[in-house]
């Protein structure tokens, strides 16, 4: 009598598709997945603990190392949390600069998503095209902040530099080329029947499950829940912009892919409006050199990062260093849905699901 035994196989932490240091312990029966156990923490750098021994301003470069694929977003969340803690208002121009770089970061992160999905499915060239276009965003970050990947551009009370003059033509030409780029991805990736077959109906995450698991960001919207913190609980000046919240239909990998591609377009719209309305003025407000919030004050601030709801819970103890900083990392929460969406699929679906859930391990392990 022939029978099969389930076996365990480790996808990661050393694996081409492990996205940095993810370990998915997979229990399989042949090519069918019975269960996935996600092990996180391989990239743990104790960022939250480091925050307790750094002053409020000194933590900014560490924050940008959380989600290193969109480094302006975690720093934006952190500085806005500190500003909320202190009750600082930020100059108008700085707010617009922040929106522009934050949305550029979101585009960069989603381009990495599309590229890594392509390469995880075996289409190497798709990755190169996405990274080529992301490189233009990196160049813009280099112009504005001086650093490409981990910019630490945000400062408490504003940003570290104003935009240089060369920034505006660069961002305008990028926005002009955006439709062409997206049509290229559609031609090479979205239109490809093999990619569609591998994404459609794979890793279905229903809206109820997504809410129950606390999934946020594009993954939640792919399940059909139009929830975007920029719209629901606007932070900064996001209430001034007009943009759509793209949603998916059934929450499969294909929806997670298309939602992100549409979000690239919407981010482009926001940047156009911000560039149009941007006033002149200061880029850095008046902030005391030594920041000492009153003891016992605490704040939770959340932003819509490229991966989902990124929240900072900061407790002050009256000194110049925070008592506790907690990061609500969207990648960490989103990764918890991997077993749910992968169960009953094939081995190759796990790879698709990891790619479309789009974790960044620096953030989830912290």
């Amino acid at each position, binding site marked *: 009598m022939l029978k099969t035994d389930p076996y365990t196989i480790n996808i990661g932490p050393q694996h081409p598709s492990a996205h940095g240091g993810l370990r998915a312990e997979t229990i399989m029966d042949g090519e069918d997945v019975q269960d996935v156990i996600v092990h996180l923490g391989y990239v743990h750098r104790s960022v939250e603990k480091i925050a307790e021994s750094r002053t409020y301003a000194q933590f900014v470069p560490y924050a940008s190392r959380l989600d290193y694929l969109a480094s302006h977003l975690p720093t934006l969340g952190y500085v806005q949390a500190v500003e909320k803690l202190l009750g600082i208002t930020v100059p108008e121009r700085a707010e617009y600069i922040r929106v522009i770089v934050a949305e550029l970061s979101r585009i960069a992160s989603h381009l990495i998503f599309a590229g890594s999905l392509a390469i995880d499915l075996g289409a190497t060239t798709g990755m190169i095209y996405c990274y080529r276009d992301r490189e233009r965003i990196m*160049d813009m970050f280099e*112009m504005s902040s001086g650093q490409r990947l981990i910019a630490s551009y945000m400062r408490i009370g504003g940003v*570290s530099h104003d935009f240089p003059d060369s920034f505006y033509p660069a961002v305008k030409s990028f926005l002009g080329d955006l439709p062409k780029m997206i049509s290229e991805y559609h031609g*090479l990736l979205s*239109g*490809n*029947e093999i990619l569609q077959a591998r994404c459609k109906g794979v890793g279905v995450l229903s809206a109820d499950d997504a809410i129950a698991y606390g999934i946020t960001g594009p993954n939640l919207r792919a399940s059909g829940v139009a929830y975007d913190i920029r719209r629901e609980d606007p932070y900064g000046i996001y209430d001034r912009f007009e943009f759509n919240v793209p949603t998916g239909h059934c929450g499969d990998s294909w929806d997670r892919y298309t939602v992100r591609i549409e979000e690239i377009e919407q981010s482009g719209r926001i940047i156009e409006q911000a560039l149009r309305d941007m006033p002149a003025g200061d880029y850095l407000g008046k902030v005391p050199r030594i920041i000492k919030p009153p003891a016992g004050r605490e704040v939770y601030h959340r932003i819509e990062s490229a991966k989902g709801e990124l929240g900072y819970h900061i407790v002050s103890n009256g000194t110049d260093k925070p008592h506790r900083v907690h990061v609500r990392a969207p990648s960490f929460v989103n990764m918890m849905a991997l077993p749910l969406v992968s169960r009953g699929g094939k081995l190759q679906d796990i790879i698709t699901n990891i790619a479309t859930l789009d974790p960044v391990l620096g953030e989830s392990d912290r």
Partner: protein
Amino acid sequence: MIGKGLLKGLGITFKHGWEKNITIQYPEVMPNLQERYRGSLEFDPQNCIICGMCTKVCPNNVLSFESAPMPGSKKKQLVSYTIDLQYCMFCNLCVEACPTHTLYFTHNFELSTARRGEIKRVYSPPAEAQLLTGESQAELIPAEALEPQPDAEAEAKRLKQLQAIKGAIARGNSKVLDKFVDFEEDASLLMTILQADQKKQDKMAELMVDDKNKARKVAAAFVAKEKRDKTGPEEGKH
């Protein structure tokens, strides 16, 4: 029709096959760096006013400096300024905090070194400033060194450096030796050797000023010998 998307993809890759390559041939063609690019962190000893803002603001203890009181004045004098680049996050906080633009980023991004110790950069103030640093060193300077001589400047500088090093060794400041040995414990070991033997100390100080490579070799030999003596004392005393 199925297969249309596949053909379209083939068309796109075919088209790109004939386009201009985006590769930058790095060692031959340097990348086009933007003006604000943050490469190597550098220090200009001329401008430093020893305000200490940089060390306060640095998140990762990259920067440190030694200062000594200026004789006959309340002002302080810089002895050495250390940038330990291996811990640097290139976050720009120190450059923003520095009131005199003493710290600045250059566009040099080729920062890899063969030895870990070489990542650390120690800056000393100009020689004439060092002359006035600390009474102990001022006493030690021989009279002839101050006399004008042919090629006097270079010779005077050399002697001053020599004195500074000797003074440092006498004080047991093993930082001066860091550049010549690979590990910190070796530096302290070498320090004990040199403090024990005046002749070795003089020789070493001269070498450190004149021939850095030779000094390295000699230092390594001293350390190796000392280690050997420690592990096997019966093998013989010198």
